[in-house]
Structures are given as structure tokens and as C-alpha cells.
């Protein structure tokens, strides 16, 4: 489906991609990880036909640079840094829907599921939205259309836990017919979402590994915690995850999205001295997984 054939990219004398050979099939969910300057963004931009390069990139046999409208019609992209667009939200959605031959309503529906009411913010300039709202809107634009490739750069970084869960559900709905390329600095952020990991370093793919993808994207985990004593900092963190206090600040209960378990445990690790008991039970799992 996606082929990178001896792809190299040099900026002045700095080689950013070094003879990349990659084959990505339909339905693969790939974590593209690596430190700053590893070449992740350049690889994505070559895939989107935004850079010229040596070698060949094809998507379904088409070269993105030459047949960009056909190729990009099928690629949804969520950038890490939202562009500072001054246009109103409503116009951005209309513009994107029109270019992508999609219906505005589909994008609005995805935004609604993520907790973003486009009716209320249609007249606001995009640049004035909060980081989380921008992220939700860009996800809605990428997913509210017919695509078979999703390219996302730290897509869930600014989302609250509820929106993250919905986002994972949206991904789960597309598992069979969509290839996903998810870029991140940290593997633990995206590990539960993927079934293949590509690690880049100085323009080369240094690790290409298949991983077990038993974790359900749309599943949830019931979590119970017991603390040694009430503590304001952890209480605030838990309430941010939608937990409720069931016993004077020492007993907590809540639900966590399946792919968020690592992230959640990462948060808890800051308060590990306070924890006396923790349980995680899988409660929901989507039929297809």
C-alpha cells in the first residue's frame, strides 16, 4: 500500500533521510518513534508529497508529489502543532470538507463525539481555540471523511481522558480498512495503539518490530485505588481522569481507556509511595478485537 523505495532527503549538506526502504500494508498501525531530528517529520512530509526527495514514495501505486489530489484525498493528517489560522472554525471545516469531497456534517459529528460543539465555535478564529479544541477539530477534519491512511503526529497529546477514549474508539472503528502512522517522541504514548513500531535515528530506520496488539482500542478498564492517606495532588490528578472519591480521599474508582493504561500508570508512578492497593479489570472490549 505505502512504499518507500531508497528514499533519501538532504537539506543543504544535512542528510535527514538516509536510503529508507519501507513497505506498509493496509490495516497496519505503526508507531513512528525517535528523538528530535531523527527524521520522522521529514518522512511524513515525503509521504504527503510536501518534500522533494531522492528515491520513490508511492501510495497505492501513485506518487504523492505527482498525483497529490488523488493521493491526499485518501490521507487524513493531524499535525503536532496546529497551524495559526485566523479563519473562523466554520470556514476551516467548510474549506476542508469541500476540498476532500466530504460532508461538513460528518466532520461536525466526529467533533461532537469528541466533545466539541462546532455550532458554538463556528465564528471563532481557529487560532483562538485552546490546544485541546484545536486538536479535536483537526482530528475531526482528518476522520470525518473517507480515508484509508491516517497520519498523526502526537494526536492525543492535548486531549483530556474522555476525549482520548472517544479518539481511541474512532480509531477502532477504522481498524480493518485504514493504515495508521502515528508519530511520537515517546513509545509509551502510542504503544497500545499500534501493531508495528518503527524507530528512527539520524535518518535511518533502526528498529522495525511487530508488537502484540491484544489491547483493545475501544475497551475500558475499571480501576480501584487505595491510598495510604488523602493527598491533594493525587486527588487532583485522579479527578482529571474522571475518578470519584469513594472513601474520604483514600478510596478512588474510575474507568480508563484501554490504550491509556500505560499513560495512567505513568501518572500514578509519581505518587507510588501513597498507593497501597491498585486493581485494573477489563470491562468492555469491542467485538472485532
Amino acid at each position, binding site marked *: 500500500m505505502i512504499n518507500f523505495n531508497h528514499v533519501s532527503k538532504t537539506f543543504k549538506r544535512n542528510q535527514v533521510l538516509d536510503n529508507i526502504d519501507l513497505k506498509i500494508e493496509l490495516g497496519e498501525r505503526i508507531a513512528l518513534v525517535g528523538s528530535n531530528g531523527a527524521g520522522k517529520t521529514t518522512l511524513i*512530509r515525503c509521504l*504527503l508529497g*510536501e*518534500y*522533494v526527495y531522492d528515491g520513490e514514495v508511492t501510495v497505492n501505486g501513485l506518487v504523492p508529489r505527482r498525483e*497529490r*489530489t*488523488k*493521493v*491526499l*484525498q485518501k*490521507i487524513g*493528517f493531524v*499535525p503536532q*502543532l*496546529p*497551524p*495559526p*489560522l*485566523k*479563519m*473562523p472554525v466554520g*470556514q476551516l471545516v467548510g*474549506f*476542508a470538507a*469541500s*476540498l*476532500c469531497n466530504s460532508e461538513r456534517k460528518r466532520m461536525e459529528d466526529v467533533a461532537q463525539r469528541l466533545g466539541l460543539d462546532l455550532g458554538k465555535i463556528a465564528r471563532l*478564529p481557529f487560532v483562538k481555540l485552546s490546544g485541546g479544541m484545536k486538536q479535536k477539530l*483537526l482530528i475531526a477534519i482528518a476522520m470525518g471523511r473517507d480515508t484509508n491512511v491516517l*497520519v498523526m503526529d502526537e494526536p492525543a497529546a492535548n486531549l483530556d481522558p474522555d476525549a482520548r477514549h472517544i479518539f481511541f474508539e474512532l480509531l477502532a472503528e477504522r481498524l480493518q480498512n485504514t493504515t495508521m502512522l502515528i508519530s511520537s517522541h515517546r513509545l509509551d504514548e502510542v504503544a497500545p495503539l499500534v501493531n508495528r513500531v518503527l524507530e528512527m535515528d539520524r535518518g535511518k530506520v533502526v528498529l522495525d518490530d511487530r508488537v502484540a496488539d491484544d489491547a483493545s482500542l475501544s475497551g475500558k478498564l475499571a480501576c480501584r485505588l487505595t491510598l495510604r492517606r488523602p493527598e491533594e495532588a493525587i486527588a487532583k490528578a485522579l479527578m482529571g481522569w474522571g475518578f470519584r472519591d469513594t472513601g474520604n480521599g483514600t478510596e478512588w474508582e474510575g474507568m480508563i481507556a484501554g490504550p491509556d493504561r500505560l499513560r495512567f500508570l505513568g501518572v500514578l508512578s509519581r505518587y507510588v509511595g501513597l498507593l497501597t492497593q491498585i486493581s485494573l479489570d477489563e470491562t468492555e472490549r469491542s467485538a472485532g478485537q
Partner: protein
Amino acid sequence: MKHLWLTAKLDIVESLRARWFMIYSLVFGGIVALLFAFGLTESRVLGFIGLSRLLVTYIQLSMAILPIFVLITTVRSVAGDREAGVFEYLLSLPVSLSAWFWGKIIGRYLVVFLPVFAAMAAAAGWATIKEVEVPWEMFLYYTGLLASISWCFLGIGMLISTLARSIDVAQGAAFLVWLTMLLFLDLILLGIMIQGHVSPEVVVAAALANPLQVFRTAALMLFDPQLVVIGPAAYVIFDYFGGPLFKIYALIYPVVLGTLAATGGFLLFRRGDLP
């Protein structure tokens, strides 16, 4: 074609919300308001009185302000958009590069030309209400000149934006281009060249190639047909061409130059890295 108009509309909306557009509109609107406030329509210079006096002054001020405004705002916003990641995102949507580039130019053209024209049209409207005679032939020709020079500098601005990868470089290059054209006006470098016995053909060719000089000569030609006030090169041009032919040249040449620059910019844009 649909994508081209969508992009043009997008650029118009972005520009209307930008601070530069507010300042740009205020400057041109303000010039006309000030010219009225200082009673310019009542004064007489070289036999000109009424709205024609105002239009001549307005066109002279436009020559000084419009090119640098168009150049700087174009290169700043285009190079700025590229630096800020706007291109990365919007060009990930399925829009063809030609629709994107030319749509952007069309949108930007409307935004830079309309305030300049609106200020002049408002002056004509006000004069009509006040029963001051409006020199319509001059009004139409000046409209054509402003449209032509706006397109010219927009095309040059787009070419510079494509060549320069950062705002600073783009802005510096735009300023340098404007300064070079300004220096080669009849009364500055061309005068010195004539004093230094440079061949008259070279001087005239330099004058004809400089869109600022062409604009200035054509604008003044209407109120000073002998061109005694603007220098020897313009006088020779007038002698070679004759008035009517030069007036046509002054409308067409900047459009051709702007189109060539924009086309060059597009070809480079299409061949290079987009963001």
C-alpha cells in the same frame, strides 16, 4: 477551478482578519480623507483644480506607498505562513499546487487592490455629491494603473516569497528590490547616468524596464503632457512612444512583468519543498 476559488476565498478571509490589512486600508483611506480635509480640491497647481488635483496627488502618494506595502505584506504573510506550519497543514489537504498558488494570488490581489481603489472611488463619490466635476477619463486610467502596478508587485512578492525560506530574508529581499527600483527613477540614478554620459538607449531601457518609473511617467503624463517636471529619460520615452502608446504600455508592461514573476514563482514553488 473550484479549488482555486476556495483557496482565493480562504486567503481573502485570512487577510481581512490580519492587522496589516487594517493598517493598509487605513493608510489609503486616510490619505484621501486628509487630502479632502486640507482642501486640496480647492488649490490650483499647474492649472489643476478640483478632483483631478486630488487624484494626481493620490496617485503620486500611491506610487510611493503601494509597491512597498504590497511587497512587504505579501512576503511577510506568505513566508510567515510557511514558517508557522500553515503550509504544512493546508497543503496536506487534497488541493492542487496550481489551484493553491494562483488562488492565493487572486485572493491577495483583490485584498491589496480593493482598498486603494475604494479610497479613490470614495473620493469620486464624495465629489459627485458635492457637485465637484469628476474627471472620469483620468479616474478610469488611474484605476487601470493602480490595478496594473498592484499585480506587478504582487507577482514580484510571490516570487520573492518562493525563493526566500524565512520571513527575514524575504523581507530584506523585498526591501532591496523596492529600493533598487526607487533608485532607478528618472531623477535619481538615471539622472546621474545621463550626467556620466551613459548611452541614452541604456538609460531609456532602464527607465522602461522599471515598473515604478513607468507608473510615474504615465501618471504624470495626464497632467503634464510635456513632462517637463520629471526628468530627461521620461521626456525621451515620451518622444519615442508618443502619449497614447506609452499610456497603453504603462498598463500592459507591469501586468506582464507581474505575471512573469508570479509564473516563475509558481514553477519554483512546484519544484521545491512546500513547507
